[in-house]
């Protein structure tokens, strides 16, 4: 898939404080269609806070959000979801007591046909079948989509969360440490999912502490330190050592672009 030059999704000069803690301090970042951005930084650098601003879960104190060049404001995650932006949060975005399919369709339930649907009743069978098909299409074989998520292993839960995000995303997909809880082989499979999303023309923002994964799958890397972007450069400019140095602050000059 070709990488378009105009940014698909962009934030400019975003700031966010929790009381006296400045979590984000004038952060700008953009992703193009068919591009994978790696977002890295130490714990507490502000990555998850940035994700929540991008997904509408938090309102930034200042700054602009642009989708397809148009200024947008997310009052809640609902607005961002409707605009085609899907997010996998670092802490589980699943409701453990609900079934796999109820989670996949959460907030987007299919109503029953006819009068029952108008009264608020749901087409559960249809959702079970479609959730199963959706997860299989992404490559996730979950046995019974009516099983509660609480009965799945950590890896399976993560698979359901990734599958849900991938199958609903229309423009942008944001993955906050999606390889947590996963073994080495499963993490490789998540990287394949990211490549598939890129091939579909989605903009991908991928957060991970596993630097080889970042180097392997991203086109560009944005490094956050203490709430500020300290480096934004093509992935080809980095190796593990220079990337680690940039994250920890041992290397202060950005690599040449």
């Amino acid at each position, binding site marked *: 898939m070709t990488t378009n030059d105009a940014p698909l999704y962009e934030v400019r000069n975003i700031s966010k404080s929790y009381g006296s803690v400045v979590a984000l301090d004038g952060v700008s970042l953009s992703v193009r269609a068919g591009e994978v951005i790696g977002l890295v930084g130490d714990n507490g650098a502000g990555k998850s806070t940035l994700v929540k601003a991008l*997904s509408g*879960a938090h309102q930034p104190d200042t700054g602009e959000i642009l989708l397809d060049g148009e200024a947008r404001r997310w009052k*809640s*995650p*609902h607005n961002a*979801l*409707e605009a085609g932006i899907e*997010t996998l*949060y670092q*802490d*589980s*975005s*699943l*409701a*453990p*007591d*609900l079934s796999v399919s*109820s*989670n996949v369709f*959460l*907030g*987007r*339930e299919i*109503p029953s046909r006819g009068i029952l649907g108008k*009264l*608020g*009743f*749901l087409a*559960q069978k249809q959702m079970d079948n479609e959730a199963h098909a959706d*997860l299989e299409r*992404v*490559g*996730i*074989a*979950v*046995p019974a989509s009516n099983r*509660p998520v*609480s*009965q799945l*292993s950590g*890896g*399976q839960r*993560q*698979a359901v969360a*990734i*599958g849900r995000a991938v199958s609903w995303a229309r423009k942008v997909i944001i993955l906050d440490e999606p390889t947590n809880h*996963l073994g080495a*082989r*499963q993490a490789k*499979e*998540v990287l*394949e*999912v990211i490549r*598939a999303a890129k091939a579909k023309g989605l903009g991908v923002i991928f957060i991970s502490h596993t630097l080889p994964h970042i180097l392997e799958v991203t086109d560009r890397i944005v490094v956050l330190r203490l709430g500020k972007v300290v480096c934004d450069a093509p992935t080809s400019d980095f190796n593990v050592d220079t990337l680690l140095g940039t994250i920890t602050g041992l290397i202060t000059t950005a690599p040449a672009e």
Partner: protein
Amino acid sequence: MAILGIATTELTQTVAPVPPRNRRIKDLLLNQQTILFLVLVAMVVVFTVLDPIFFSVGVFGNILLDWGPIILIAIAETFVVISGGIDLSVGANLGFSGVIAAYAMKSLIAAGIDDATTIFLGLLVAAATGMFVGYVNALLINRAKLVPFIATLATLGAAGGMSIVLTGGAPIGEGPESAIALSVPWLGPLSWPGIVVVVIVIIAGLYLHKSRFGRYTYAIGSNSFAALAAGINVKLHLTRIYLLSGLLSGLAGMFLYIRLGSGAPTSGTGNELVAIAAVVIGGVALAGGVGRMSGVVIGSLILAVVPSGLIIIGIEPNWKQVVIAFLIAAAVSLQALRTSSTRRSK
């Protein structure tokens, strides 16, 4: 294709394909609904053996009349607790709505309005009063950011106190005289209000388990951030739940008015604990996200059978508190047992 082979690889290791037979029997026996139903049947059998009069349409009719207001506020509590909250105001709200409706009906009768119209308008007043208290709960929780326990404790005090202040503690009568007659059973042990309650139970169960409203209720109680992240308007849904809780408390107030022929300010006092007991005995988790309406129905029936049963077999009725306390303890420890045997941590 298997891009994410996660599930396929892990499943073969962690999930047994079909539980063996004795495992399934154990699951069934540990199933709270099954146990509850057996407890209910056992109670009826024991009371009947001790005094055959217990097994009669007359006694069952009375039990169902006792059950009416209990199940209405227990349904309210079911939605609230599954959403991760608690509503301590249901009992006080029941009494308050009954009193306000009683004043309204007293004025209407004094103005020469006929009984049927008066009862209908009284029903609307009780419902509106209940929903008003529910709305205040929602405002305190969503706007003032109080936890549900504190918010509804405040409205419990306010509604209970206002009922006493308004009435001076005395029941308000002089309403429609034919109201009491409505409570007479005519369909086996069922009276008109009883039939209405049964219909409400069925509709509430369908909405809890089959509708978007119920789905959001479970989602919020299970993980409210996940619900928000999925695009659900969590505050709006909680407002609807506390409005529903208020509405059902108001209807319970009217039910009791019809039964007693007056609105007594203290008629709901302590009933919030009975409702919470019914919900907990019925298998609803106080942490939210878990529970079934069928369990709550049986739990509330057990609570309605205990006092009548104790009276029939000649035991001092105050023992009922002790029996209920025992049932709650048993239900909660059973829940803990089940959780540790079948569920992983949240």
